[in-house]
C-alpha cells in the first residue's frame, strides 16, 4: 500500500491503470480531460500496456469502445456533460449489447450557456440506457469504485456497463490523500476479462441484426435482471473489497447517523459529503437527523429507501433537474416509498447549474422542514434569485 496525494482525476486514472484495460478510446472535454491525458501518458511511457485511440467525437468514442468490447477485450473511457449527451445513442448500444464497459463521467452542467460547474443532470439524463450508475464523493471512493466497477460489470449475472460519476472540480480537481493498493492484490480481486460473447472469425456470429418484437422485450427483461443482480452484488463485492483492501464505502447507499434519526437527508456526489457536515452540525443543535448518500442510482435502491423511510421524513437534495417534473431523486424516492408507513418525502432543487451548495445551505433546508415551513408535495428551488429577461 502506498499513499497518493493528488486530484480526483489523477487518482481515478491510477485506478484505471491498475485494472489493465486493453483498449481506451478518448475525446477531450473539461473537466474530465486530466483522466485521459494521464492514461495517454501511462500508455506512451509503457506503464500501461493498452491500445489508446484518439477518436474524433464522443459518439465515436463510445462506438469504438463498444466495438473493442465486442471483440472481447476490457475497455475504458471517460467523459463529461455535453460529451456524455453526445454519446447517448451509443450508451443504449453498450447496454443492449451487454458489454462491460466502464466509464467515468465528471458531472458538469449542460449548456447552453457554457458552464464548467457540477450538476448531475448529464448523468441522470442517461438513466434509462442500461448503465449501472455510481455517484462517488471522494477521490478514494472514486479509486475503489473503478476497481469494483470492472469486477461488477464483468460478473456473469450482470454483464452491463458501469458509469461512475463525480463532481466537477470539487472532486475532479481537488487534491486528496488516497491509499493505493498493491497491483498483485488488484489482480487477485479483478482477474483477466473473459467475454460472454465476442466476434471471432472462427465462430462467425452476427451481432445486432433485426430483433423482432417477439424477442425484444425479453432482452430488456434480462438487462433488468442484470440490474437486480447488481443490487445484491454491489454490497457483496463491496464487502469482499473491504476484506482485501480494508475500505467499504457502503452498498447502494451509505448511511450516516441514521440509527435514531427522525429526518434523513438524501444526497449524492459532493452534495453528499457536504451533507455529512450539515448532519454533524444539526446533531450538535439537538436535531435527530441522518444522511442517506445514494452511491448507486441505477439500479435504484428502492428496498433500502423503503427500509430507511419507515416512520421518517426524507429530504431529497437534488442537484439535477428534469424540467417540467423536478429532481430525479425526489421523484424516484417518492415512487419507491409509496405506501411506506409514516414516510414523507421533501424535495429541494439545489445547486442546479453548478451553484455551490454549502453545509450551511443544507442546514437551512433541513431546518425549514423541521420547523414545518416546507411541504412534502412542493419542491422548492433553493436560493432562487429574481428571474425574467436577460
Amino acid at each position, binding site marked *: 500500500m502506498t499513499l497518493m496525494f493528488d486530484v480526483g482525476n489523477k487518482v481515478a486514472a491510477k485506478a484505471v491503470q491498475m485494472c489493465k484495460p*486493453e*483498449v481506451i*478510446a478518448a475525446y477531450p472535454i473539461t473537466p474530465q480531460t486530466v483522466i485521459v491525458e494521464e492514461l495517454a501518458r501511462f500508455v506512451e511511457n509503457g506503464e500501461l500496456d*493498452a*491500445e489508446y*485511440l*484518439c*477518436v*474524433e*467525437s464522443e*459518439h*465515436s*468514442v463510445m*462506438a*469504438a*469502445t*463498444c*466495438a*473493442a*468490447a*465486442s*471483440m*472481447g*477485450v476490457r*475497455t475504458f473511457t471517460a467523459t463529461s456533460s455535453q460529451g456524455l449527451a453526445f454519446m447517448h*445513442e*451509443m450508451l443504449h*448500444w453498450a447496454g443492449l449489447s451487454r458489454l462491460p464497459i466502464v466509464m467515468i463521467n465528471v458531472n458538469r452542467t449542460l449548456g447552453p450557456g457554457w458552464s464548467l460547474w457540477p450538476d448531475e443532470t448529464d448523468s441522470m439524463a442517461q438513466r434509462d440506457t442500461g448503465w449501472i450508475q455510481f455517484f462517488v464523493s471522494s477521490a478514494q471512493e472514486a479509486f475503489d469504485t473503478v476497481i469494483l466497477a470492472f469486477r461488477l460489470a464483468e460478473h456473469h449475472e450482470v454483464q452491463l456497463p458501469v458509469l461512475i460519476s463525480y463532481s466537477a472540480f470539487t472532486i475532479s480537481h481537488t487534491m486528496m490523500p488516497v491509499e493505493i493498493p498493491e497491483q498483485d492484490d488488484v489482480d487477485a480481486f479483478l482477474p483477466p476479462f473473459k467475454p460472454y460473447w465476442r*466476434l*471471432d*472469425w472462427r*465462430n*462467425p*456470429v*452476427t*451481432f*445486432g*441484426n*433485426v*430483433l*423482432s418484437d417477439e*424477442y425484444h422485450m425479453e432482452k430488456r427483461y434480462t438487462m433488468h435482471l442484470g440490474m437486480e443482480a447488481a443490487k445484491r452484488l454491489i454490497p457483496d463485492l463491496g464487502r469482499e473489497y473491504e476484506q482485501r483492501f480494508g475500505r467499504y464505502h457502503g452498498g447502494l447507499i451509505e448511511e450516516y447517523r441514521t440509527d435514531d434519526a427522525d429526518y434523513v437527508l438524501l444526497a449524492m456526489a459532493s452534495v453528499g459529503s457536504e451533507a455529512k457536515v450539515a448532519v454533524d452540525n444539526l446533531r450538535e443543535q439537538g436535531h435527530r437527523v441522518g444522511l442517506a448518500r445514494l452511491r448507486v442510482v441505477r439500479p435504484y435502491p428502492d428496498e433500502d429507501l423503503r427500509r430507511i423511510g419507515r416512520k421518517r421524513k426524507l429530504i431529497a437534495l437534488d442537484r439535477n433537474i428534469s424540467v417540467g417534473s423536478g429532481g430525479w431523486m425526489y421523484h424516484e424516492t417518492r415512487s419507491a416509498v409509496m405506501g411506506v408507513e409514516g414516510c414523507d418525502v421533501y424535495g429541494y432543487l439545489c445547486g442546479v447549474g453548478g451553484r455551490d451548495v454549502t453545509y450551511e445551505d443544507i442546514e437551512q433546508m433541513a431546518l425549514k422542514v423541521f420547523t414545518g415551513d416546507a411541504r412534502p408535495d412542493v419542491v422548492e428551488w433553493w436560493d432562487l434569485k429574481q428571474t425574467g429577461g436577460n
Partner: protein
Amino acid sequence: MAIKDLPREELMHPGAGSCPACTDLLTLRMTLKALGPKTVLVTPASCTASVACGYPKTPFGVPVLTMAFAAGGAAASGAVAALHRLGEDDVNVVVWAGDGGTYDIGLQSMSGAMERGTNFIFVCYNNEIYSNTGVQRSGATPFGAWTTTTWKGKVDQRKDMPAIMLAHRLPYVATASASYIEDLYRKVQKAASIRGPKYLEFHIPCAPGWRFPMERTIEMGRLAVETGAWALFEADDGKVEFNLRSKQILDGKTQRKPIEEYLELQGRFAHLFRPERDEEALAGIQQFIDREWERYKQLAACGMSVG
C-alpha cells in the same frame, strides 16, 4: 482475372432478406469471396440490415458487428485495436456502409478513422439513395433524380466522395461497379493486401429505388460507366489510374455514350422525358458529366495533389 477464377467458396448463405436483384448482396458476396473467412464486417444502419434479416438467424458466414448509423469508422478503429491486442492483426476489418453511412451521417467517423490510420477497408456501397428507409435523397443522389424527399427531382449535385478520400492521402482508394465484378473482386483483394486505411466505393444500381426492371440491374451499372456517370479508377499511394472502359474513355479510345441513354431507362428520371423533355435539365446533366471528365483528366495527371 476471369470469372472462372473467382473462388467457389460462398461465405454468404442463400436465403438472405434483401430484395430480388439486390446489388448490395451481390457485392457482399463477391467481397467476401475476395477476403475469405478471416474477416469482420462492421455494418452501420443500411440496406444490409435487410440482408442480415432476423435474429436468431443470419446469412453471413463471417462475423458481423451491426453498428449505429454514424459510427462505422469509429467502430472499425475499436475493432482493429482489440484485434491487435488479441494478436489477430491478420483479420480483415471491413466497414460495409451505404452512401448515407458514408457521404452523410457517417462522414465524420469515417474521416476520423482514415486520419487515425486504422488498418481497415471502408466500403461504401453507393446506390445513391437512402433505399432501406424508402428512397430518400442522400449526398450521393445525382442531380435531377426523383426520390421521396425530392419529388420534382434533386436540385443539388452529388459530392465527390472518392476525391474527399484522396484528400486524406490514403494508401489505396478505388471505385468499382457491381457490373464489373472481376474488377471489383481485384480491387477488394488489392485493398486487403495493403496496410492502413483503404477506401472502396461500389456503384450499385437499385432496381426498386431507381425504378427500372430488376433483370436490367447489371446493364444499368454498365450504362453508368459507358455514359461516364460513374468512373472506374484506383489510386495506389495517390497515383491515379482509370480502369477498363473508363480508361478507354479517358484515353479517348472510346466515346462516352450520351447520358440520356442511361437516364431514360430509369423511372427516377422519367419526369425529365415525359410528358415533355426537360431540355435544360438534360443538357445540364450532360454538362455536369462533361465537366467531371475534365476533372478526371486532371486527377489522372496529378493524382491526389489535384485541386
